[in-house]
């Protein structure tokens, strides 16, 4: 069981090495990528079942006992998010491969895409599984460095502009993260999360607050919490379709997971956190209102992405078992639905040749399947019953209603932001799918990687998008067991005894 824990990190890394060495053989790269991610998805499922039945699984790398060595930990939350993330990366990879085949034929290999994609997956797995603050930094760097390459490869002028903002902001937050780690180490003498959970409580409260707030700023930048969100709607829309889907699905949620993990494990509190409630309200409203005025489909989705980070933040701000459980469920649902919407946006762009909403129209008649693929995740994101979004929002609202007066007010804002999301998406529906049929606009830039306006989309691209829609529907169908699972995960997070005992053993009582 302990070996399985290392494989979600090692397999994608080995796969990346193989795809670099085999960069002349396109088929080899594709097979390696899909096989590796399929295996990781199965392993993540196994980890989830075992972690749910027997408690957190721990591996001490190199045989060094924690807190000296690096520990990998899979508990219910990390295994669940790992499973959902891997399913999304698998679907997006299938989509990306078939988009490339549709555009350039079966024979063209890519020297950078497959290795970087797999390295990003390795970083994501490591970020979920690590039980060590510094390894978390390394995981983020692994993930972000791969993302820098993916967002700036085959550059044109607009993509380089977006890439610069993205890279600079991410670098800044990484250096702040490193600073926070140095200060935490200076104060406590450990970087092991389970060990820190015991030691940080003994620090003076002022010092604790400073360290907690530093980590909030670090992960706030990476997770695009208002007012630290400005880089996201600028950079994501400029990435090619599948890459934008990958980023939108995973990167911000991994950062939110890190925030959830560190705040619940290290900086525990007994009542709702007012600062985070205010940030959640700002994030929900700024994102939703920003989405309303956009004319670029991808920018609109990016703003809605920011808005829905606020929903998860609300769950964390409530800071009890129910709230944190709601946040975990919402994160799982959000990963799938945002990735799906960006993939659908890619399909729409390929058909219409533009991302401008006012230059599209009539797709409901010319591409009815596309309309279905858009409608289901759109309704899910807006939280209409009986979709997964409704289940997740219900969990958040129940937690908010039970926790006190101010959380009830914020729960009202949750409903308002959901309605604004629905309005923004209805606006997309009216402009893109209704109205007169329009001839596709010609591709403005033939040299860049994205081929648009041709309506050439292969069946696997639709199948991959449909698969993600199916995952999000499955979350709705299995809402009962999943809600129970996240409720257990929430209880684990709020009272991290099982986590600490699993990592430290008898030393946890110290």
């Amino acid at each position, binding site marked *: 069981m302990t070996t399985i824990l290392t494989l979600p990190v090692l397999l994608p890394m080995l796969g990346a090495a193989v795809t670099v060495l085999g960069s002349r053989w396109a088929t080899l790269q594709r097979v390696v990528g899909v096989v590796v991610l399929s295996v990781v998805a199965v392993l993540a499922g196994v980890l989830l079942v075992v972690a749910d039945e027997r408690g957190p699984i721990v591996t001490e790398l190199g045989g060094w006992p924690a807190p*000296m060595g690096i520990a990998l930990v899979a508990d219910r939350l990390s295994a669940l998010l790992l499973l959902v993330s891997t399913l999304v990366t698998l679907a997006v990879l299938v989509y990306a491969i078939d988009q490339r085949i549709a555009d350039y034929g079966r024979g063209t290999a890519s020297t950078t895409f497959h290795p970087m994609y797999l390295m990003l997956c390795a970083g994501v797995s490591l970020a979920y599984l690590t039980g060590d603050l510094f390894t978390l930094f390394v995981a983020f760097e692994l993930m972000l460095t791969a993302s*820098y390459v993916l967002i700036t490869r085959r550059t044109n002028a607009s993509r380089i502009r977006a890439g610069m903002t993205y890279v*600079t902001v991410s670098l800044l937050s990484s250096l702040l993260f490193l600073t926070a780690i*140095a200060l935490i180490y200076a104060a406590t003498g450990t970087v092991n999360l389970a060990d820190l959970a015991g030691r940080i409580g003994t620090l003076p409260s002022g010092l604790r607050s400073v360290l907690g707030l530093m980590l909030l700023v670090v992960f706030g930048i990476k997770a695009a919490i208002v007012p630290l969100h400005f880089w996201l709607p600028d950079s994501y829309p400029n990435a090619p379709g599948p890459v934008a889907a990958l980023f939108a699905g995973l990167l911000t949620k991994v950062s939110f997971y890190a925030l959830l993990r560190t705040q619940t494990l290290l900086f525990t509190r007994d009542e709702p956190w007012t600062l985070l409630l205010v940030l959640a309200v700002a994030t929900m409203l700024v994102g939703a209102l920003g989405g309303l005025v956009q004319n670029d489909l991808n920018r609109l989705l990016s703003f809605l992405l920011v808005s829905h980070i606020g929903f998860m933040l609300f769950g964390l701000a409530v800071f009890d078992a129910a709230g944190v459980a709601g946040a975990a469920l919402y994160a799982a649902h959000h990963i799938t639905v945002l990735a799906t919407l960006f993939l659908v946006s890619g399909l729409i762009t390929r058909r219409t040749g533009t991302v401008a909403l006012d230059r599209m129209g009539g797709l409901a008649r010319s591409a009815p399947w596309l309309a279905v693929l858009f409608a289901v995740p759109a309704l899910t994101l807006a939280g209409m019953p009986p979709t997964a979004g409704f289940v997740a929002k219900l969990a958040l609202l129940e937690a908010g209603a039970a926790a006190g007066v101010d959380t009830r007010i914020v729960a009202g804002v949750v409903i308002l932001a959901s309605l604004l999301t629905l309005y923004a998406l209805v606006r997309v529906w009216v402009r893109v799918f209704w109205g007169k049929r329009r001839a596709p606009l010609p591709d403005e830039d033939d040299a860049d990687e994205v081929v648009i306006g041709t309506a050439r989309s292969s069946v696997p691209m639709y199948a991959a998008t449909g698969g993600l829609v199916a995952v999000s529907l499955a979350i709705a169908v299995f809402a009962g067991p999943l809600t129970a699972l996240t409720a257990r995960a929430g209880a684990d997070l709020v009272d991290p005894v099982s986590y600490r005992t699993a990592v430290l053993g008898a030393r946890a009582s110290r």
Partner: protein
Amino acid sequence: MTTMTTTMTMDPVTINMVMALTVGVLYAVGFTLLLSRSLMRVLIGVVVLGHGTNLLLQLAGGPPARPPIVGTAPPESFADPLPQALALTAIVITFALTTLLLALGYRAFVLVGHDEVQDDVEDRRIARQKVPSAPLEAGDGDEQDVESADDEVEAAAARGRDAAS
């Protein structure tokens, strides 16, 4: 090793004032450079900031002491090796990212002619709009927009045909 780290945390770590000030100056310089538009200055800012952070990691390990190699000295006189390992990892990562930024800056210079970070174009455009577009209510006006945009498309297509013939 366990005892060593434990004792180190029990004692308050005394920090060299000169080193602390150096870290502060490096952070100030780094952040100031990060605020500029030119990617080259941003790059230097990141490098300086990275040095500051690595120095801070070193400071976190406590005062200078003997190299932590078993058998060369009594364990009590060892320096804490962990921050050094962390700083080494961080140096490798910042080095890799510095090269990436350098390549990005060069690419921007080749493509755009300069390496300055530009404003968000679409954001500026939306900010300039006087009346926010109200899509659902404005039925008639919308229809006309669609028509005129259609004409534009057809005109563009016609131009394309002319050019081809």
